[in-house]
C-alpha cells in the first residue's frame, strides 16, 4: 500500500507560515465582545448593590463606593485586555491550510491543513447576526484541543471558507472511495451505526 518515495525536500524554498500576512478580525466583532462583556459585568454589579441594600447590620455602610471602584477597575482592566487580545488575533487562508494566531502573554499559532479537516461548522450568534458576523470552526481528528475556531468573520467570508473547505473534504472522500474500490479497504465513513454503549453482554445481569 505504501509506495516508497524519498524525494529531497529543500526546507528553505518552502513557503513560510510565519511570513504570511495575517488578516485582522472584523472591527464589528470587538463591539460584539464589548456588548457581551458589558451585559456580564452589569449582572455582576447586581450582587454588589444588593449587598448594600440587604445589609441590616450596617456593616457595609459607606463602603459601597469601594465596591463600585473595585468593579470599575476590574471592568477597565478587562476591556483593556480585550482590546489587546483583539489586536493580537489574526487569521490567514492559504491554498492548503488555515492559520490562526492569538494570545497576549502566550502567542499561539494554530495551523490546520484543509485535507485533514473532518467537518466545518459555521456559528452565528444573535449579536453577531445583527452585525453580519459569523464564526467558523474546523474540526480535525486531533481532538478538541486542535480544533480551530475563528470568531468575528464577515458572514460572507465565513460562508466562503466553509464552502471551500467542504469542497476539499468531498474531494478527499471521493479520492478515498476510489481508492477503497480498487484496494478493497474497509474504510467507509458515511454509514454509521454505533453499537450500544453497554455492549458487553456479560456485564449485565
Amino acid at each position, binding site marked *: *500500500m*505504501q509506495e516508497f518515495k*524519498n524525494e529531497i*525536500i529543500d*526546507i528553505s524554498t*518552502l*513557503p*513560510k*507560515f*510565519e511570513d504570511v500576512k495575517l488578516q485582522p478580525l472584523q472591527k464589528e466583532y470587538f463591539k460584539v465582545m464589548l456588548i457581551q462583556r458589558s451585559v456580564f459585568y452589569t449582572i455582576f454589579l447586581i450582587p454588589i448593590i444588593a449587598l448594600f441594600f440587604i445589609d441590616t447590620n450596617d456593616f457595609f455602610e459607606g463602603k459601597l463606593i469601594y465596591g463600585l471602584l473595585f468593579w470599575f477597575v476590574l471592568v477597565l482592566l478587562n476591556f483593556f485586555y480585550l482590546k489587546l487580545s483583539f489586536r493580537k488575533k489574526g487569521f490567514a487562508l492559504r491554498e*492548503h*491550510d488555515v492559520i490562526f494566531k492569538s*494570545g*497576549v*502573554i*502566550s*502567542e*499561539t*499559532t*494554530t*495551523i*490546520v*491543513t*484543509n*485535507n*485533514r479537516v*473532518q467537518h466545518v461548522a459555521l456559528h452565528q450568534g444573535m449579536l453577531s447576526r445583527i452585525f453580519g458576523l459569523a464564526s467558523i470552526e474546523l474540526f*480535525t*481528528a*486531533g*481532538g*478538541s*484541543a*486542535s*480544533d*480551530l475556531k475563528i470568531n468575528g468573520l464577515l458572514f460572507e467570508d465565513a460562508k466562503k471558507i466553509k464552502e471551500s473547505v467542504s469542497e476539499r473534504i468531498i474531494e478527499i472522500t471521493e*479520492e*478515498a472511495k476510489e*481508492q477503497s474500490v480498487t484496494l*478493497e*479497504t*474497509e*474504510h*467507509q*465513513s458515511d*454509514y*454509521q*451505526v*454505533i*453499537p*450500544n454503549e*453497554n*455492549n*458487553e*453482554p*456479560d456485564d*449485565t*445481569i
Partner: protein
Amino acid sequence: MIQSNFDFSIPQRQSLIGIFVLFANTLQKSIRALWPIILVFVFNNKEYKPFFIYLTIFGIVVLITIIAFLRYWFFKFYIDYQLEEFVIESGIFNKTKTTIPFHKIQKVTIDQSLIQRIFSVHKLELDTAGSDKKEASIKAISQQMAVELKRSLLENTKEKALLVPETELVERQDESFITISLPSLLKIGITSNYLISFIYLIGIFSTISENLKQIGKENLIDENINQLERLPIVSLLLGFLIFSFTAIIITNLVITVLKYFNFTIKKDGKSFVLTYGLLNIKNTIINPEKVQIIKITQNFFQKKLNINTIEIFQASSDMKRASVKDRTKIPGCNTTEKEQIVKLIINRLPAKEVTLYPNIRKLLIGILFFIILPVSIGIVINYTTNRFPVNAIGLMISLYSLIMGLILFISYKNYRLFISDEFIVQQSGAWDIDHKIIMPYKIQAIKTQQFFWQKLTNIGSIELYTAGGRISFSTANFEEIKEQVNKWLYQVEVSKENWM
C-alpha cells in the same frame, strides 16, 4: 451458499451445556467483586455451626445457578439480513441489545478457554479494529454452530467487500510471529509500574481495613500497630521499606503475569493480532494504518536486562476522534523483537537526521519552579513556625535539591526531538525514558506557542496533534521549529497516504 443446519435469522440461544460455563463465569465475577468480604469471614475467629456454613454455600450455589440460567435464557443472537447487522440481546433486568453492522466486523474468532474445553463448547467473538474491548462475544455454543455462524457472518461481510480481504473463510494456520516469554514478563514485573502497584496495594489494604471495621475487628489492626511502635524507629522504617518493596514487586509480578501471560503476536495479512492473558484471554487487532503513535519505554534496569515496553496508540475505527483513542501495551520485548514490531508497523526503523535540543532555560526554569521556589517557601514556613532545627532543615533541603536537581538535569539531557523526512521521534523522561514516534503525514494540526518574553531569546514550543494523541516539544530554538513546521505542513498537504 452452503446448506446450513441453523437459521440465524431467528433468535438463537447458546448450548444448554453452556449454563455451566456461565455458572463458572458468574462465580468468578462474584468472587472478584466480593473477595474482601469472603476474606474477612474466613479469618473471622467467630465459630460458625457447620450446618450454617453448608447452608450458606448451598444458597450461594443455587443463587448463582439461577442467575446463570437466566443469563442463558435471555441471551439471544441473530442475524438481521435486511439491516445487515448481527444482533445480540442479553440481560436479565437491564436488557441490552448490541447491534454490529456487517461492515464493521473485522474478524470473527472462535476460541476455547479451559472451562469451555471441559464442557466442549466454543466461544465466538467479533472484533472491530482498534478496540481492546470485544464488540460482541458469545460464550458457549457448539462447535458446529460456531463454525456455521462464522461462515454466515463472513459470507455476508464479504459481500459488502469491506472486510479486510485477508480474513479468509478458510481458517488459515496463523503462524506465531513473536511470543513474549515468561522470563521477559518477570523482568518487566520487577522493573516497572512501581507507582501503580503501590496505589493498588493501598487500595487493597484500605478495602481490608474497611471490611474489618464493618465487622468490628478494627482493634486487630490497632493491636498490631501498637506492637510495632515499641520497635526502634530505624528498624521500623527499614522494615516498612523492605515490606512495601517486596509487596510492590510481588503485586507487580502477579499483575503482569496474569494480564500478559503467553503474549503472542500473529501477523494476519495487513494487520496483526495480539493474544494475551492467563484468566481472561484478550484479542486485539492492530491495523498499522490506524496506528498514530508508537511509544517505546525503557528505564535503567530494563536497559541492563534488555527489555522494552511498547505502547501503540490507534485512532478509533468509527468516530475518527482522539477522545476515543485506544492504547495497546506490548510488555517485555527485547531489542530485536522491538525492532521487528516497529518495522511491522512502520516498515522501517526511524532515522535521526535532525535533532532539536532544548534551550538551557528549560533546565533553569525547572530549577526555579521545583527547587528554588519550594525550598524558599519551606525556609520561610520553618522560620515562622520553628518546626525543625536549622541543621535538620539544612540536611533536608540539600537532600531534596540534590535529588530534584539530578532528576531535572537527567530529564533535560534526555529531552530531544529527532526529525527525519519520515518520522518524528520525541525522547523524554528521567527514569523511564520514552520515545514517541509519529509520522509527519499523520499530523492533524500543528500549534506553535511562544511567550512574549521568549521573543528576545528566540525560543518557543510546538505541539503536534494526531488522531491518537499529541506530542510536544518546548523551549527550543523557535527558528528551527518554524522551519520544521513548514516542512511538516508541506508533507501533510502533499500526502495522499491514508492516515487511518
